């Protein structure tokens, strides 16, 4: 009897969350799944059209493939680069040097700045003629690229910008590195291991759960890139030459510029499936290289 009551109270206390989940997450989720099989346009129509949206996306819509390509490009370069960068920085930040706290703060600072302010800052930095980056390159006689105005360089520009804010995940790595038992390093030194050996044989395996976590979350995050392209492309729709037309931007254009909501819903489910598959693959491979203490 008492047990039953306790269960009831338990449910009661999580009730606000359950209602929130059912009403605001699961409900819209199922609605969008259903909507993806309709020609829903928010106001006047919602007719069931079967797989029409999906068929059109895969068979006729070139922009769908363009946006998928752009997003893949971004993910493939941005995720490994930012991960490596974060590990490198945190290794540096893990040294015992005077004033290290100041350096840690400096490297972490970009992570607390976010959003449009940062993008506007980078648009100024990347300005082809007056931007600091090209002026700096100019000192070495390098004629810098047109960055955001050149379809070949616009995506790399965003990737470079992302590298700048690697400080956020640096903090995770740093915490993990500090948690690695000193005894391991002491034993390694006794055995005459070099610093590089210690890094690859001790540090990396010990922080591999964090690396795994970072890769999974940043892959998902990178697939969802939107704001950067929306703010930094000159027509807010992927210019130049659709080189910044990322998947979510194209989905957003369909949903909120053209109000082709059903089509956009179909796009979001395709993205969901892609990310799901990649995450499952990530987890399968994880067994080979992620090392959990105590296993």
């Amino acid at each position, binding site marked *: 009897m008492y047990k039953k009551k306790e269960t009831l109270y338990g449910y009661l206390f999580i009730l606000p969350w359950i209602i929130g989940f059912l009403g605001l997450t699961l409900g819209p989720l199922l609605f969008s799944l259903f909507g993806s099989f309709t020609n829903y346009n*928010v106001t*006047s129509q919602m007719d069931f059209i079967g797989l029409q949206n999906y068929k059109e996306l895969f068979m006729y819509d070139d922009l769908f493939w363009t946006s998928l390509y752009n997003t893949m490009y971004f993910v493939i370069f941005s995720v490994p680069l930012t991960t490596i960068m974060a590990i490198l920085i945190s290794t540096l930040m893990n040294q015992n040097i005077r004033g290290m706290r100041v350096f840690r703060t400096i490297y972490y600072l970009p992570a607390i700045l976010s959003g449009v302010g940062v993008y506007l800052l980078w648009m*100024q930095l990347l300005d082809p*003629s007056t931007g600091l980056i090209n002026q700096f390159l100019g000192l070495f006689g390098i004629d810098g690229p047109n960055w955001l105005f*050149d*379809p070949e360089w616009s995506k790399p520009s965003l990737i470079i910008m992302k590298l700048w804010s690697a400080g956020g995940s640096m903090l995770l790595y740093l915490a993990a590195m500090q948690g690695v038992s000193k005894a391991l390093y002491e034993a390694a030194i006794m055995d005459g291991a070099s610093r590089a050996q210690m890094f690859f044989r001790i540090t990396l395996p010990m922080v591999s759960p964090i690396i795994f976590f970072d890769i999974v979350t940043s892959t998902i995050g990178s697939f969802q890139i939107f704001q950067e392209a929306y703010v930094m492309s000159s027509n807010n729709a992927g210019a130049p030459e659709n080189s910044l037309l990322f998947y979510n931007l194209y989905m957003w*254009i369909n949903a*909120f510029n053209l109000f082709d909501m059903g089509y956009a819903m179909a796009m979001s489910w395709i993205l969901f499936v892609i990310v799901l598959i990649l995450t499952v693959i990530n987890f399968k491979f994880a067994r080979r290289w992620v090392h959990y203490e105590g296993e």
Partner: protein
Amino acid sequence: MKKYLLLIIMSVVLLSACGGFQIGGGSEDSGSTESDSASDDTADSGSESSGNGEKITLDFWTFWGSEQRRPIVDQIIEDFNNSQDEIEVQHTYVPWGDIWTKNLAAIAAGDPPDVIINDINTVKLRAQEGQMEPLTEFVDEEVQGRFYDQMAEATMVDDEMYALPFNTDTQILFYNKDLFEEAGLDPEDPPSTWAEMEEYADALDVQEGDSYETIGFYPLIGPGSDLWMLNALGENFIDEEGNVSIDTEPVHDTFNWILEQKNKYGGNTITSINSQFENAQQDPFMAGNIGMMVQNANYYVQLRDFGQDLNFGVAPMPEKEEGNGHTSWGGGFVAEVPKGAKDPEASYQFIEFLTNHDTQLYWAENNFDLVANQEAAMAAAESEEFSAAGQEVYSLMVENMDDTLLTPQPVIAPDYSSTITPTFESIVSENTSVEAGLEKAQSDLERIVENNR
């Protein structure tokens, strides 16, 4: 006892959760929540029994919230409210980025604003999708005849009028008179054909080593290639029936002409100038680095406020060859009644007021904005409120309306621009040849039209 407690808590939670689903609930502007709920009551009773002295309250959505525009809108509303005692209009400012989406959500939820300012080029689309109340039954001949023809036309679908045009704009040529004089050109005789533009540009160019200190004229500083296509064709490259005229001689000439100018200056010069505009660091025209450029005529306001007495002149857009026409392009906004508004007739009365001569003149004089009411626009051109330069620009704007086309989004291909604009960009950046690019754009657009049929 505890059972009851549980019930009460559950119902409270449920009720509060339900409250969250109300669309357009007071959360956006808590400041006006009280007046909103009060007004809803009066509105309901008012529309049912308008005889008993209760007022109908209308909710008017605009994106005009700036320091400069808001007082003007509020003044117009106050004038309207004082002009009669049946309708009370209240202004709701919704930011530019949100207004269309919120409007749609509100229509879907059955609680739309009573009047909204919306984009003129998409009226036909919204009408087609059933998002607006038709106004034809209220519009009399005087009202219909107020507007520039092309604007009135943009609000019509199958002989039904769905909105009243409010304001518009047009593209004209700005040129720097001081630079003209330095180059030995007559500042009172601006060029009027593409060939003359080139000639003048050569005279205005000041080259320093590899780079240019002054750029005489480059077509794509300011407008996009689509404006020049329109200028060359004398019509939009896709008409309402979905006929596409991209792979045609005038368009080929347009791109060859643009590329010729581009290669004269070099791509880097152009990119650097355009990025200066883009990043809003400085305005190269105001800085005296550009001899001539085509811009939205409203650019005058920036020159007036920040141009530091720049000695500039204005002229119609050049024409491709003599006799081809100085075709220019315009956009604009309309006042409309969203589908499901509680009292379209009352809404119409306010819309009519928004577009009448006095209101439009007031708007024109205070915003230096080209209004849709022809007579008001003509009166504004002679307004004492403007300086001599202001009058000159406004007069040109008014005259230019004869050559200004609107390009309503064709219902048959509403989303064409994201498909073909990149192709045009790629021609200009010379990643694609003119021939191949235009052939591709033509067939891409034809395919979109075909799919939508």
